């Protein structure tokens, strides 16, 4: 009977399936479009493409970080260390470029930015994978492991910089990846393009490679994944590596934009990334969700923040709004899944 009880939206292949997936994704997308339209109506500067360019820049770094978070959450884990990694990677790169860990003026006799960035990214992968190994090999709770590393990485960034920002001068390559290019009337920040590439790559990995399939499988049923012969520990460790790597890219973006590596660079990015993932429809218990939802989630968060600026809401109230959005997103998520018994819209035959 369960066979026949499948409602028509579920039974799908080809175009029908595509439409269904689109519908499932439209929730966050509709909210985004609605916000956009509301802000266009209410706020004069919001109609200006320059503002959009700025928004794209705001989306870039957190977007890349949240992409990594998406992988982790899809496996049923969580990475609370990302904001610390953003700061840490920025500090590492800045110190290497500046050739000094003393705050203030750029000495400009450090390493070329390409080398410095490579070191910072390698550190991101390495530290991420190390966390993943602790989580898998010792069966430690990801919440605690990544929380511990958050503290350690922030601590190291703080010690190395003595609490101040390491200022740098941008050389050619660093300028190239932080500049804004113009397409007609539209300013497009290069970091945003990088973010787009990251999202395309993430989509490709999740949809078209065995690694992506394993990611969903582990989040959906880790025991079954193990019993199906999947190297669960390896995949999970790699995924924390990916998260560390993408957080480090985010860190370079922030550092490049500010021309400063400081331990505060990543502030609030953990919460924002988890919020973006959840708003985008990825289940915190893993196995369900996707990368594009996260991009929408990130954009929603940034658009709300920008909207508050343009509507003269005191910036101190930002946290209240973001917090409320997260709670609302999770609420929508459980309702949509029919996990709230007294709100269950349709029930399946048992």
């Amino acid at each position, binding site marked *: 009977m369960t*066979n026949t009880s499948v409602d028509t939206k579920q039974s799908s292949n080809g175009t029908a399936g595509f439409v269904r997936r689109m519908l499932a994704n439209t929730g966050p997308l509709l909210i985004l479009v609605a916000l956009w339209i509301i802000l266009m109506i209410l706020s004069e500067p919001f109609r200006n493409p320059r503002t959009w360019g700025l928004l794209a820049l705001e989306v870039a770094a957190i977007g890349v970080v949240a992409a990594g978070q998406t992988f982790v959450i899809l496996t049923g884990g969580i990475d609370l260390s990302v904001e610390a990694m953003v700061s840490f990677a920025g500090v590492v790169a800045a110190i290497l470029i500046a050739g000094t860990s003393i705050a203030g003026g750029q000495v400009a006799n450090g390493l070329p930015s390409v080398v410095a960035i490579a070191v910072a990214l390698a550190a991101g992968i390495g530290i991420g994978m190390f966390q993943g190994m602790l989580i898998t090999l010792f069966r430690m709770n990801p919440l605690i492991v990544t929380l511990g590393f958050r503290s350690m990485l922030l601590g190291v960034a703080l010690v190395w910089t003595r609490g101040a920002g390491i200022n740098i001068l941008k050389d050619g390559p660093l300028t190239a990846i932080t500049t804004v290019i113009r397409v007609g009337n539209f300013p497009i920040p290069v970091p945003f393009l990088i973010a787009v590439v990251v999202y395309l790559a993430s989509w*490709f990995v999740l949809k078209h490679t065995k690694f992506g399939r*394993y990611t969903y499988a582990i989040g959906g049923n880790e025991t079954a994944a193990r*019993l199906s012969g999947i190297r669960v520990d390896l995949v999970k460790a790699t995924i924390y590596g990916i998260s560390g790597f993408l957080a480090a890219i985010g860190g370079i973006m922030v550092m490049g934009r500010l021309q400063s590596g400081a331990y505060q660079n990543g502030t609030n990015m953990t919460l924002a990334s988890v919020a973006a993932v959840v708003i985008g429809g990825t289940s915190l218990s893993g196995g369900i969700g996707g990368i594009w939802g996260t991009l929408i989630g990130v954009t929603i968060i940034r658009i709300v923040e920008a909207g508050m600026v343009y509507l003269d809401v005191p910036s101190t109230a930002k946290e209240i709004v973001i917090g409320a959005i997260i709670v609302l997103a999770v609420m929508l998520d459980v309702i949509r899944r029919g996990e709230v018994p007294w709100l269950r819209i*349709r*029930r399946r035959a*048992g």
Partner: protein
Amino acid sequence: MSETILTTASDTESTAKPPLLEMRSITKRFPGVLALSEVDFDVRKGEVHALVGENGAGKSTLMKILSGVYERDSGEVIFKGQPVAFRNPRQSQLAGITTIYQELNQVPYLSVTENIFLGTELTRGGVALKWSEMHQQARDLLAKLHLDIDPRTLVGRLGVGMQQMVEVAKALYHKADLIIMDEPTSSLSIREINDLFNIVRELKAEGVSVIYISHHLEETFRISDRTTVLRDGHLIKTQPSADLNVDRLIRLMVGRDLSEQFPKEIEVRGDEVLRIEGLNQGATLRDINFSAYAGEVLGIAGLVGAGRTELVRAIFGADPIDSGTFYLDGKKVNIKSSRDAVHNGIGLLTEDRKRQGLFLQMTVRENITISVLERLTRGLTTNRKREVELSQQYIDSLAIKTSGQDQLAINLSGGTQQKVVLSKWLVTKPRVLIFDEPTRGIDVGAKVEIYRMMNNLAKQGVAILMVSSELPEILGMSDRIMVVTAGRIRGFLDRDEASEQRIMELATATDRQTIAEVLPDLFSE
């Protein structure tokens, strides 16, 4: 003349004693399907009423409407003479209807007493718990059920059978008039089933009514007064169980003849495929030595807790072992993980397919190909076209009832899900395939299909190991039977010499030394 009088007499009798429960013309619709269509159902006081039907016939839906999990679309429910409409299970429980679910709803880290009194704790002034009184009452309830367990024991330490008994004790505490037992024996050993039946008889003697849902038809005859058959959401028949037999019942359930329950085809035994030497694992497995042959179904029988599941999990590399050498096709192989097992051509259909076998939120295709994605990967990407072809091939050959490859596994029936898990292993072209309780919770029609697939696999030279608690299944499908007791192999029986009697003799053989060695571990587990 005399006939008329008799009819009148019985009519008067039944009107004089109104049934405890009457469900009239119950209809329930889910999106796309009519789950129940004007079903009538009644239970008398002190009656054991069996409710049977294939998966999806509507048994669970009917019971969920009764207990308040679902709302009915139309029809009425009269309980103890009052029309009722329970809105949640708590309301029905307060009214005197308790359900004992297939998946038990207990808190493993709380004691037996705490579980029995959960939500209705005895307190002084609403705050302080009256421990000694609760323990005493729990002890009395357990004694009533002839259960020899300390009420302070953590429920998680009890076996599934005992946990179920605790649920019964809880129902007794709540003074239930009607207990719904949903597949109560699916994970019980034969002895536990007997205990359960004794308890059901005692409940009955005390005037408690029981609705008994089971796929094990033999059981329903042993225990029930009347039997109601549902099929595709329709009431087929309610009649005294004494007037039925298994064949008739199956015909009523399936709507067609099932000439044989076990369509066993005997193959010529081929070469040795798997040989295990000196397998030991803590106190759970001791000195295991055996071989499995191509084309053979080796049944693994034993009581619950004898180590059958542990044995197959060890062979599959799912749990670490202390020692043991494995040979596949005569060659020594190293199996340290499930991955090694899969790569060496060993597959395991776990007993709990939802928790250990399936990816419920993934599609049929993704479930089928998960173990062979590496083979399907060219360069970076998975070969989508081959993946689609491959899964379609198995959907066709196993007649998997699905609306398409993209259907999520969660939306499939139990039997269909089992076929999907089976396909997952078939694509790996296994040399050895282990079935752990392959037909648990699966309806009669789907069972036969699974058995036919076993036949096919055996024909192709796969060595099959089948763990089962159902002796008819073991006897019906095995070429050879290995009996496991307390972590050791107690003996082998050939198909011709095997009988329920012989298996039980071996399974319950009291080698005092072995039992003494192992039992403490079983209890402290």
